[in-house]
């Protein structure tokens, strides 16, 4: 799936990528963040 981000959004997310504990490229980091968010947001209702 393709997701568009503004260059500014990616600049902020770059700092998360630099932390290196959610992946080694932006695709992995975006997916990891999405999954963390889903856990926060949907809780036990998450698939």
């Amino acid at each position, binding site marked *: *799936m393709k*997701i*568009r981000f503004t*260059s500014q959004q990616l600049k902020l997310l770059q700092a998360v990528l630099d932390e290196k504990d959610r992946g080694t490229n932006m695709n992995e980091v*975006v997916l990891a963040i*999405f999954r963390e*968010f*889903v856990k926060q947001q949907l809780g036990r209702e*998450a698939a």
Partner: protein
Amino acid sequence: MSKIIYTKTLDPVSGKAIPMKRGQTLTITLLEGPQCVDFNCFNLHDYKERMSVGHMRRTGFRCRQGSIVWSAPPRYNPMMVFTELPATCRTDLLAARCHATQFEKERGYPGTHTNCQDTLAESIAEFGLTPDDVHDSLNLWMNTGWDDEGNFIPNVRRNQGKKGDQVKLLALMDVLAVPLICGSGDVSNTSNYWFRSVKVEVTDSTPENDAVVATLLKKHTGFINQRTPDQFRVKDIRTERDLTATDKFEPKFTLCPVPVETVTVELTESDKKNLAKLVKRGFGEDEEDALRSAVMTWYTRNRTAQIVPETLDIE
């Protein structure tokens, strides 16, 4: 004891523009009882830099000990800090300032009623500033409120100020501080239908206050976006009143058009189900919108400082 370098009693209805140096403290004392005091603040060396009550509101609609008097962006400098603010001094950041037309239009006052716009203008005129240089005022001892429908309640609650109440504002830069007696006092609860005198006093810096200044400057300055006029595209202050467009002007916005990049992710079956659930719950117009919103909401929740009232947390 710090040295008193200026003292004056402000009688109704008057004000005073007081030059202050960084590290000095302005003390405003209620001499007789409840009295609303309006306040304006300028950079002493550049009058175009002035307090922005609108930006002060970002941390709440009232000030407290530790609250910063901010100048308007793009300067956004800490101008002063409340080092003392008694509970009986309710502060108001919503009421702007009273003005003569308001009393004429709303109350049918025949003529010019005393008002903060005119008192501020008269006070700053001593420094060559015009009535247009008056800005939204920080209001001390003004017990206004609001409700959750967004209604402003300017005039229902009585002033809680007590004789002897003192507010202290420590200058974090050289400022022109302008306290004054609010002119609406005799026709509203703002000052409980009366006018009373207040004392204003400036005291010199002390080692303790210098330490507070140093700590707060370290915390609140040094950002690359706190700009100075030499960084402005238009540096000169316009003198003609008539506005005309500059020939062949090309705006240089920060980002326009906004660059967009695409990130590709491989979603599992459960990722897809969760994403569909988010869309169904109105978390996005479509799957791309929901996924982007999810990622950026996570960022906002986990990597963004909370907006909270400033405190005087000096170690």
